């Protein structure tokens, strides 16, 4: 008989800034690889997904029109929060089987640094991707990137934290709101990430995180008309084709990356403006120039 009984955490979905249980009333077990214990995560349903998309859609206009400076500070705050929970996140990576303590901390550190990197992009992306166009005639002509809207994010199983953070922060810094499906195989780090986000001044609904079965959620994400773009990585050909086919009906933008495990650690290539560009729409404005 132990001296003190542990108080186990009830894991929840993160929707509209609230931690909620799944409407499905169902959970699914994952095994803690190091302790051999079992954790139960919410098995998010189609209804939960719709709530998440609704929350992301409602938060969209305000987040998109927030200044890049503000968005940058909020993403930087996420990095601060993750830094302060470094060991806890490392423990979550242990739970999903990331082998050595050094590897775990390296991944957490890389994820923190990735957030800092994208935080800095938030008030610079317009200058890199936009510009003035030299049209003939008396017109002032400029092109600026604007966020696509609601982006569905489907990170791969590994590296669960670093890939999820990279795929989340790129559209986020440009002013998109997010519905992320935690990697089905290794959901715990992302479920924990929700708690970090919840304490980082991220406005309610800007980031929504679901756990559950990919098969039960991703097709609804692809079909939903209020999801404007989907970001996925390392899908097999068949899944990617079906995702694109289903996205076609609402002309959703689908961005897919194939990235090796080592590739996610390459900060320069994973934190480039070309990781952000798939989630912006170029808006071109003409105005006559005359006295």
């Amino acid at each position: 008989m132990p001296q003190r009984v542990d108080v186990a955490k009830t894991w929840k979905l993160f929707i509209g800034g609230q931690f909620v249980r799944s409407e499905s009333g169902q959970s699914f077990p994952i095994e803690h690889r190091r302790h051999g214990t079992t954790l139960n995560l919410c098995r998010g349903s189609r209804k939960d997904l719709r709530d998440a998309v609704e929350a992301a859609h409602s938060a969209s206009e305000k987040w998109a029109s927030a200044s890049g400076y503000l968005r940058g500070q909020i993403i930087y705050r996420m990095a601060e929060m993750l830094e302060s929970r470094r060991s806890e996140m490392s423990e979550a990576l242990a739970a999903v089987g990331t082998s050595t303590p050094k590897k775990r901390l390296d991944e957490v550190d890389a994820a923190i640094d990735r957030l800092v990197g994208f935080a800095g992009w938030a008030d610079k992306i317009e200058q890199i991707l936009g510009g003035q166009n030299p049209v003939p005639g008396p017109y002032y002509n400029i092109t600026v990137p604007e966020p696509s809207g609601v982006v569905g994010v489907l990170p791969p199983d590994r590296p669960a934290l670093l890939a999820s953070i990279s795929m989340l922060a790129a559209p986020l810094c440009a002013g998109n709101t997010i519905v992320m499906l935690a990697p089905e195989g290794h959901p715990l780090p992302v479920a924990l990430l929700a708690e970090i986000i919840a304490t980082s001044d991220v406005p309610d609904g800007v980031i929504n995180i679901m756990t559950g079965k990919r098969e039960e959620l991703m097709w609804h994400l692809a079909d939903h008309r209020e999801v404007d773009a989907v970001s996925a990585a390392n899908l097999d050909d068949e899944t990617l084709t079906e995702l694109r086919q289903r996205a076609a009906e609402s002309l959703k933008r689908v961005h897919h990356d194939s990235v090796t495990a080592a590739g996610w650690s390459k900060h320069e290539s994973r934190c480039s403006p070309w990781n952000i560009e798939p989630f912006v729409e170029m808006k071109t404005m003409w105005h006559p120039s005359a006295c």
Partner: protein
Amino acid sequence: MNDANPTASASTASMWEYAPAPERTPLEIDDRYGLFINGEFRSPNSRRWFESLNPATGEVLSKVANANQQDVDDAVSAARQALPSWSRLSGQERAKYLFRIARRIQERARELSVLETMDGGKPIKESRDIDIPLAARHFFYHAGWADKLQWAFAGATPRPVGVCGQIIPWNFPLLMAAWKIAPALACGNTCVLKPAETTSLTALRLAEIFQEAGLPPGVVNIVTGAGKTGQLLAAHEDIDKLAFTGSTEVGKKIAEVAAVGDRRLTLELGGKSPHIIFADAALDQAVEGVVNGIWFNQGHVCCAGSRLLVEESIQDEMIRRLKHRLGSLRVGDPLDKNTDIGAINNPEQLDKIKGYVEAGQAEGAVLHEVTTQSLPKKGLWFRPCFLTGVQPSHVIARDEIFGPVLAMMTFRTPEEAIKRANNSPYGLAAGVWTDKGARIFEMAKRLQAGVIWCNTYNQFDAASPFGGVKESGFGREGGRHGLRAYVRI
């Protein structure tokens, strides 16, 4: 056309007679045009041909090859074979081919303009002043990019995508061909172009220009045919990048077909673009903007300003001015350089436009048109018009009509204007007229569209990215941004 006394001349339209059209210069048109594959014109494997008509007269201009699977295979394979040497050619040398093409378009501008107008029905003043010069401009502009691509994408190394399948519509035939081909070639890709069934002739002239410019065989191939040929091209498994301009309905099907394999896709689709006029706008210019926005090219314009949103206080004034302008628009012989509204491109489109105007009236909208001017006996014609009493729920306020039909509605506050404007699955373009600078920027920011025309409308240039958001498609054409679809980085 800003009359001091706008009502005075409305009834004089009937007195106008058509002048002989000086543009009706003899133009050599072959009896038949084959497919342009691997640098040569050849008969189709299908052995089938279809007629290309002049929509203003109904006369047959020529016969055009109808490409089948084998023909499309041949064209794609020619493009594939030409790819290694073309993509390895230095940008400096690729550029020179494009400059040559631009120059030849300018040198043959008259012939191309007349042919464009005969084949498609658009007024000669538009093909002469817009379509053809802008097509040359696109080649000239993109030529200059060919040796500068390494500067176009911050920190990245661009490489060609490969073989590009490009499907274009009938409203700006040569211009759309230029929009598609020029950036593709500048970036080191090879192409298979599928022009629209009713307007293949200028694209085939462009093929002659490619021959004259000495463009290596297979770099651009042109397969003509109807929707079926387009489908074959879209579904072809050896295409690396697909670009489509056309309706949203077809665009969705193309997106589904293109979902297989690692194929890049850009879509420039339909629109129902809002055109917003505030009471403080310079009304003379705004009215001209509205006229140009909807009655340019018979309204066969994907970004046509077909939803007019007028601040309530100036509604009566706007109706009065638009009625006056309707009376001064000349409908008829597209080859007459005074013609404002040419022929409707094809009979299906004419039926569709008629159907929409009837539906609009059935839902309670009031039709305004000027009927004093008689229409030519032969050919496909539709009088420009606008409808008032339109509700946002009406079909004419929601659907793309693709004709010279304007739906007029009102708003009271900027907030309401934005809500009404954005209440559409489309997001191609939007127009705003106001004298308040701060309001211009706020409106431009909040309108959901890829192109915002402020105190102007329907401006286009090779250096300016064009393309939509939402169900108007994705990807941009023109400018540095337009190159993105044609490179891997």
